[in-house]
């Protein structure tokens, strides 16, 4: 199946609520090897003016990437996950994610194109609290290797 530019603008329903939690943030900080106490100690975070421990800048990917699998699983788009490469990532933060956040992720396909035999998908995933406060948006550019070739076969 060719990558259909008509999919640009497609918005998927918000995910179930993701409860962040101090231990998940600690686990993520441990996994990236970052000993910064602001990711672990509420008192240190509060000294910097934060209400609770905050998550490292790339933590949102642990929520946005699984949420974005809805695109790969979309039967109408027909992507082959083994051909999808992560080419670019950007985060735009309204504020950091806090341990007590309850977030939903809404995935949008912003752009779809094909050139030189490869497919390109630009996606945006908005993380919003259950009270409707926008926290961060993750923008991913994905390359679908051999998309056109696949379409012709």
């Amino acid at each position: 199946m060719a990558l259909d530019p008509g999919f640009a603008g497609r918005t998927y329903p918000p995910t179930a609520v993701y409860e962040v939690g101090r231990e998940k943030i600690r686990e993520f900080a441990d996994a990236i090897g970052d000993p910064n106490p602001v990711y672990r100690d509420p008192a240190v975070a509060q000294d910097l003016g934060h209400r609770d421990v905050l998550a490292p800048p790339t933590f949102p990917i642990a929520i946005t990437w699984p949420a974005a699998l809805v695109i790969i699983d979309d039967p109408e788009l027909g992507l082959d996950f083994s051909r999808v490469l992560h080419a670019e990532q950007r985060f735009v933060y309204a504020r950091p994610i806090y341990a007590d956040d309850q977030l939903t992720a809404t995935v949008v396909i912003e752009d779809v194109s094909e050139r030189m035999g490869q497919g390109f998908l630009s996606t945006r995933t908005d993380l919003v609290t259950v009270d409707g406060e926008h926290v961060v948006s993750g923008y991913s550019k994905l390359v679908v290797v051999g998309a056109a070739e696949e379409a012709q076969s």
Partner: protein
Amino acid sequence: MIKFADVAKGDVLPAQTFPIRRVDLVKYAGASGDFNPIHWNERFAQSVGLPDVIAHGMFTMAEAVRVVTDWCGDPGMIVEYQVRFTKPVVVPDGVAEDSGARLTVTGKVSAVNEDGTVRVDLTAMSGGDGDGGGGEKVLGLARALVRLP
């Protein structure tokens, strides 16, 4: 903590070198939920044409920004962060403490904006001498926008 008034275009941030071992990729897979076997299974990685297991791009992205968060003192000051994954970081297996890969990250203030933000451009090199010399550039357009007090 760094103050906006003290920062000038061209300022160089303290560089850092991050060792990346196989165990780090396994831990990152668990914490992030990205279990793609190219990040832990040599046999699979080679079957799809890679020289060996490669680090998660998002792991490299997480390490690179530590140069910024350690410099500014509060990760909550970052308002935007982006990278392009241009080359994979190959992480060989080994039993020695210094096995695996080394990622060296340098940063430079590329803009001081009127709205109180500064832009930091990052360079991430895999391999090399650990001081930013030699090696291969693994991220492109890596930059963070930071709102300083």
